[in-house]
């Protein structure tokens, strides 16, 4: 009962911080170096970051749940969710560093912050699982590290392709606006 209360406590803050972290990653990854406050880039970055975060969380929960069926039976699947959500808090320092590097230091290299942050989440989630079970198990470390590595790799690869999307979105919006306002130059 005591552990259940602990799991419930602070859920809103954990969710809020996680969303902020993934939004920060998305915004910094798709930031336009020539126009840091471009709304298309910021909007697309927020959406991409949240989507990536959603997938990463689902996969990490699923994988850790798969290897800890006994814990799920005894304490419910909420315990696995709690471990993953606590692990996700480890993203905060990396998100802060990514924001500082892009908006203050004007760097454009953010993939390393995201990769390092995602890998740290893997370590932290395995640690939290160990705390819940009372023993650190190598299978959790491997499972969490595998999912984290996979997502770090997927992000690094896909970000290069997706970086073009804000340009297309901006072009599409401009075209639509032009059509709506002036008939697209046809009238």
């Amino acid at each position: 009962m005591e552990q259940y209360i602990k799991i419930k406590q602070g859920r809103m803050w954990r969710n809020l911080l996680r969303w902020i972290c993934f939004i920060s990653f998305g915004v910094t990854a798709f930031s336009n170096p020539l126009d840091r406050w471009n709304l298309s880039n910021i909007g697309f970055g927020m959406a991409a970051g949240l989507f990536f975060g959603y997938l990463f969380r689902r996969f990490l929960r699923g994988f850790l749940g798969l290897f800890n069926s006994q814990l799920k039976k005894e304490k419910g699947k909420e315990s696995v969710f709690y471990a993953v959500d606590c692990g996700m808090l480890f993203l905060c320092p990396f998100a802060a560093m990514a924001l500082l590097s892009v908006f203050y230091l004007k760097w454009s290299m953010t993939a390393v912050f995201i990769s390092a942050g995602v890998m740290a989440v893997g370590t932290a989630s395995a640690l939290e699982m160990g705390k819940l079970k009372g023993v650190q198990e190598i299978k959790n470390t491997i499972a969490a590290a595998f999912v984290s590595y996979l997502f770090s790799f997927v992000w690094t690869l896909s970000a290069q392709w997706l970086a073009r999307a804000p340009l297309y979105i901006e072009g599409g919006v401009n075209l639509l606006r032009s059509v709506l306002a002036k008939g697209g130059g046809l009238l």
Partner: protein
Amino acid sequence: MEKVKKSRISKLRVILGMMLSPASVLKSAVAEMPWGFALAVSSAAFCLFFLQTGLDLYKTGQKEIGFVILSAAAGAAYGLIFIPFAGVVVWAMLKLARSQKELKWVVSSFCLSYSGALVYGITGILFSLAFAWRTSVAFGAAGVLWAAGPMIVAIRATTDGKNALSIPIATAVCGVVLLSWSMFGQL
């Protein structure tokens, strides 16, 4: 006569352990490690990172060999002075929050967090010298960012696993390290 056997912990095992599974090393080995070794790890890690940055600029003809030596010395000084100082500041802050950890343990764990950066640094310098690759970002920055994970684990251990205390401190420390690192790199 009672013989007291002192267990000898392999320094190489501590370095690799801090890189891959910091929680277990922090629990078992950090207290046994001499100050000098921990300071040498962070100093050597930053020395190799800054040396790679200097070598990259030298290879592209932007800087002379004197700059390479100077940047390596600056890195060594940074790892020797700033990282232990950050550990002292965090220890003082957590002392107010009634942390039981000793100063030596906190400083050693901060310095040993850069074990991963040292491994990356050694690998990077080998590739830089043997194949003339530019390695400061791929090996140098990645290694230093890797250190954030073990550092967060160390802060968490110092606060007895309290996320509400450890995450803000870790975020502030990582931000300060990033800013000081960028300022030091511009000298």
